[in-house]
């Protein structure tokens, strides 16, 4: 008989982690040794003739060489987008635009497996997530916005819409294909043309999307996909013939962009960082809540701007929740992202791993108590054990700053008012989570939490029909749903 005081049996997880490997096959995906820039419907060599390597963060092996676009290339792409806008796209009836966008959605679905494999190889996320979330949601996003293209007159009561022109779009490395879909689909539906730059670590699925766009016979120049790092992004932001900047990334870079376009008439939407509070009340179904917390912070290795990185647990269930979390942490499978059993894959890059490890050090130095899963990490590649901190103070850096990794800071609270105050005490306002069985309490919380997305008894859910975006320093503008159209039209 097990004689633990709380009448539970100590769980053993070492066997649970030793499932037989179930690797996805690489053979269903084709990655070229070198990729060029997609400008005006053609793949073109970069004028600076420079290429950089894209590696697999799970193994550190080189996957491909990616073209680096310089100012001249950006200029060429913007010119192509302008010409396509003036001559073709803005004149095309919405119903015709719609059919092109539907085509793209369908082709992504047809090649879903290939996209999932490449997304995982290039970015390190578990194949289960790229297969079941990133790729289907990206296709759905195109499918959803395609249908808006001929219905814009219904979107804004008593107003007409007109497209903005050329949209310059810069997207992050955490959901490469999905973010491309979030940006391109509404822009095209509203009649704009696009110059988009994926993050330099994760260009491959965007370039595969370029292949689809070519196959779909989208008029040349309507979508231009150019690759490169910060300098390429800056060239897009500063190009005088771009009408709109859409950026997803860090708050730091978001502020630089807001400043850079201050002297222009460019419109902007910024989807920036976050430090979401996930709040568990004592009447919550605790096992579900723990599952939600795990999903909230460890989904995509915590590389999620809306990750539930601050956990607030009501005092009376604090110990129980932390114990359950530690147990659950032990059962997470960390390792090869291509393995279908893997829960936590590779950290996206060495730089990001260093940032995360630095915060883990800071958390310990600040006096917080750390607990990490005992999982063995692969010898090569960039990995981080799922990590939780207790004994965290509101002022600690791990409770204030976005870490963008699998690191959770846990604090306790007593009353509703106290936790509202603590949850809102951050410059960010992207998302929040609430766990309780009481409906009236849910709505008290969801209305008082200053965040753009609030998940009650769930977390990290996304849908093309559901607007997403931040309050305060988490940015402005929405992506998804009818509200997402406003980012890409003049309302007159």
């Amino acid at each position, binding site marked *: 008989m097990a004689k633990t005081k709380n009448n539970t049996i100590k769980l053993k997880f070492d066997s649970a982690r030793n499932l037989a490997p179930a690797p996805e096959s690489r053979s269903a995906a084709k990655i070229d040794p070198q990729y060029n820039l997609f400008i005006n419907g053609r793949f073109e060599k970069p004028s600076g003739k420079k290429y950089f390597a894209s590696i697999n963060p799970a193994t550190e092996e080189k996957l491909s060489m990616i073209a680096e676009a310089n100012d001249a290339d950006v200029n060429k792409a913007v010119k192509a987008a302008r010409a396509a806008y003036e001559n073709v796209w803005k004149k095309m009836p919405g119903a015709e635009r719609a059919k092109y966008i539907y085509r793209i959605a369908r082709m992504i679905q047809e090649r879903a497996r290939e996209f999932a494999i490449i997304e995982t190889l290039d970015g390190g996320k578990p194949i289960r997530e790229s297969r079941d979330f990133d790729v289907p949601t990206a296709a*759905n996003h195109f499918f959803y916005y395609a249908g808006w293209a001929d219905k814009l007159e219904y979107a804004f*009561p*008593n*107003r007409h819409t007109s497209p903005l022109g050329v949209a310059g779009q810069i997207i992050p490395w955490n959901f490469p294909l999905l973010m491309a879909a979030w940006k391109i689909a509404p822009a095209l539906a509203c009649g704009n043309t696009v110059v988009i730059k994926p993050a330099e670590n994760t260009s491959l699925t965007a370039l595969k999307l370029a292949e689809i766009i070519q196959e779909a016979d989208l008029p040349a120049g309507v979508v231009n996909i150019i690759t490169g790092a910060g300098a390429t992004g800056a060239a897009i932001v500063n190009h005088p013939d771009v009408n709109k900047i859409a950026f997803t990334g860090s*708050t730091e870079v*978001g*502020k*630089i962009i*807001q*400043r850079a*376009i*201050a*002297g222009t008439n460019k419109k902007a939407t*910024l989807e*920036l960082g976050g430090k979401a509070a996930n709040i568990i009340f004592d009447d919550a179904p605790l096992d579900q809540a723990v599952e939600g917390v795990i999903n909230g912070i460890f989904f995509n290795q915590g590389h999620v701007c809306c990750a539930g990185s601050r956990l607030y647990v009501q005092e009376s269930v604090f110990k129980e929740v932390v114990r359950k979390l530690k147990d659950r942490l032990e059962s997470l499978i960390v390792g090869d992202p291509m393995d279908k059993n893997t829960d936590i894959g590779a950290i996206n890059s060495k730089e990001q791993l260093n940032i995360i490890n630095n915060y883990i050090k800071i958390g310990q130095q600040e006096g917080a108590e750390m607990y990490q899963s005992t999982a063995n990490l692969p010898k090569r590649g960039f990995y981080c054990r799922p990590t939780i901190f207790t004994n965290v103070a509101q002022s600690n850096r791990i409770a204030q700053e976005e870490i963008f990794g699998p690191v959770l800071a846990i604090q306790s609270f007593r009353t509703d008012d106290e936790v509202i105050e603590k949850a809102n005490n951050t*410059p960010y306002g992207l998302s929040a989570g609430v766990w309780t069985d009481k409906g009236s309490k*849910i709505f008290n919380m*969801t*209305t*008082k939490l*200053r*965040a*753009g*997305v*609030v*998940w*009650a*008894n*769930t977390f990290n*859910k996304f*849908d093309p*029909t*559901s*607007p*997403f*975006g931040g*309050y*305060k*320093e*988490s*940015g*402005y503008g*929405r992506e998804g*749903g*009818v*509200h997402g159209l406003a980012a890409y039209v003049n*309302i007159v």
Partner: protein
Amino acid sequence: MATTEKRLEVLKTYKIYIGGQFPRTESGRYYLATNSKKEKLANICLSSRKDFRDAVSAARGAFGGWSGRAAFNRGQILYRIAEMLEGRKAQFVDELMKQDADKAQAEKEVNLCIDRLIYYSGWCDKFQQLFSTVNPVASSHFNFSNPEPTGVVAAIAPQENSLLGIVSLIAPIIAGGNTCVVLASNTKPLCAVTFAEVLNSSDLPGGVVNILTGKIAELAPYFADHMDVNATVYCETDAATQNMIKEKSALNVKRVVLYDKVKWNDATAQSPYFIMDLQEIKTTWHPIENIGGAKAGY
């Protein structure tokens, strides 16, 4: 015998409006408001950075209460403001005429202000219905999006008119549940201060609207870079100021709203889109239980 002695008029002291109080500027500074004939109208407070910061702190303090009120209640208070303005119409006509308007123009401006307040009073509990959505997500969740106020708004009123600009600016801001600090017209400040007295007698909680008088050039940078302000609104066409506001607002990712093409005496100067300029969309998710698989068949 009745005498026709000339009675000495009591002059009004024009002060600023912060947190429901009428202090003088903490700086002790003033400027002289005149009409186009250079006749002296009043000594006006030349508000300082500290006045602005006090006003922001009053606006922040009032935000939770004001945004948490029932939308219907906000509508009633806006209606009450209109009632009070109607009752004091003569005073505003008089002030507008001192500031160069003829009688017909002055009456027209005050009437338009009253009507505009009634217009936005009605929107208080309606714009949400127009701009909210229930989103048909593809998973088993109930999901909806609705507008919520952006927060504390720092606004620089149109300079061309004394009353219409500031009323047209404030009404949609507070109808949407925001609180604000507003800088009145520099050259025509009288009605803004008197309008503060109207606000103060209209059940509007102190701190929801704070009105300063002073110089744009001096105060605009603070309006744009204060870290506890969520949005900046600017109604003039000066490009250098616009760019300065946009640039400084990046410090804490403020929303910047420029009303440089609005004709304030036109019907196009009022619409629910003015309210929506200072709203955030919040999306809420909750799972839908599905155990037995029963359908709503009847």
